[in-house]
């Protein structure tokens, strides 16, 4: 069917573009590691403190690294008109948003599954907790990508104050960090409850993000 061809073509295109600019992804991962390093220097290499705040530090940096993917979503395709070409190829804007979120999640967030254990070991966090972090990151990272998509689509015509895109991401990501950091050091059923809430937030964002981002993209196209 034609749409399946178009969907495959867009996935393939995003994959090729990402790997043509792979240093971009590496830079985001490096930002994360550098952030951890800065925390180490600012707090002093006291292992006891890391045990307590290490997880929070990791999640904070995951959130901040998410900011860096803001422009990757729609800016290039919007400015050069290829998003219109994609739309005329039969892909609705919601579908384009969904595909972009999936590819950004795979290429930007998934490498963190390897980097987080490294950072956790550097911060002397126990293996149990590392597993908890990875589980909550599994649920939380698509939420972060969805938030970045919403913020990216809102800022397409923003030519004055681009920092506000990052502010939007940070404000909307606060519930994610509340419920993912709180998972560790809690009783077993509390962990389940918080994971369920996180799952609920994920489903909510997956439901609204394609629609919200598509509306913002259409709005931006009308006023270009």
């Amino acid at each position, binding site marked *: 069917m034609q749409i399946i061809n178009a969907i495959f073509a867009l996935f393939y295109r995003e994959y090729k573009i990402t790997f043509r600019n792979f240093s971009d992804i590496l830079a985001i991962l490096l930002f994360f590691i550098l952030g951890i390093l800065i925390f180490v220097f600012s707090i002093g290499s006291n292992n006891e403190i890391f045990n307590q705040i290490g997880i929070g530090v990791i999640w904070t940096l995951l959130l901040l690294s998410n900011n860096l993917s803001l422009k990757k979503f729609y800016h290039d395709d919007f400015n050069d008109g290829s998003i219109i070409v994609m739309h005329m190829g039969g892909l609705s804007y919601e579908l384009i948003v969904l595909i972009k979120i999936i590819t950004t999640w795979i290429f930007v967030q998934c490498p963190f599954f390897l980097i987080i254990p490294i950072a956790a070991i550097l911060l002397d966090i126990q293996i149990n907790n590392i597993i908890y972090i990875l589980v909550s990151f599994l649920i939380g990272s698509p939420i972060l990508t969805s938030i970045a998509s*919403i913020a990216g689509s*809102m800022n397409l*015509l*923003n*030519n*004055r*104050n*681009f920092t*506000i895109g990052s*502010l*939007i991401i940070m*404000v*909307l990501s*606060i*519930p994610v960090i509340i419920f993912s950091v709180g998972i560790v050091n809690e009783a077993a059923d509390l962990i389940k409850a918080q994971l369920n809430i996180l799952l609920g937030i994920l489903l*909510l964002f997956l439901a*609204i993000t394609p629609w*919200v981002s598509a*509306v*913002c993209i259409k*709005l*931006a196209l009308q*006023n270009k």
Partner: protein
Amino acid sequence: MKFLINPNRFNQMSDLILIPLIILTLLTLLIGLIFVFYLSPEDYQQGSTVRIMYVHVPSAWLAMLTFFIMTVYSIVGLAFKIPFSFIVNSAVAPIGAIFTLICLITGSLWGKPMWGTWWVWDARLTSVAILFIMYLIIIFLKKSFNNNDVGEKITAIFIIVGSINLPIIKFSVDWWNTLHQPATISKLSSPSIDASMMKPLIIMTISFTLIGLVTAFLRIKAEILERKLRN
């Protein structure tokens, strides 16, 4: 009811009502302050400082009410394409921001002598702080766009997405029982606050609402004029 969505009707209504409303506001404010300072009891534990509550609680309610009104108007404006809703949004956002700021500052001033700390990161304080930041983002976001139509629509979308914060504030006190005291006034059970404190609280709430309303009316009128000039 047309004055809720039509700028001309709104101007007509507000011209009629404004002066009586201002008088009513000053009156209720005066009565409320009399109640607060002379006719309300001192708290058993807190002494006179409890009277900050009569400013703190109404401004908290109004901070959330304003956000709720902005959310409703954002949905109406985007769904039914009513430009007046965006006028209301940009007029009312700074009012909500100031109420939130008053809530945070009075809460802080109340907290230091009473509970020994200017601030603590419990659920309710944190979510009100987030509410304040949301207001600021809303105000900044609208100004970041060269094209005003786009700016107000994107801001409306952000208000709707960000309104998820309101239920979290409302119920955070039930979910996490930490420093901030649990809700004393709820629909489901009779309030655990004494009637002598309830009266000034209600009067101050009414007067704050009226203050907010008068300021909103003035700002909306100014916004309508500004748009007429721009076109």
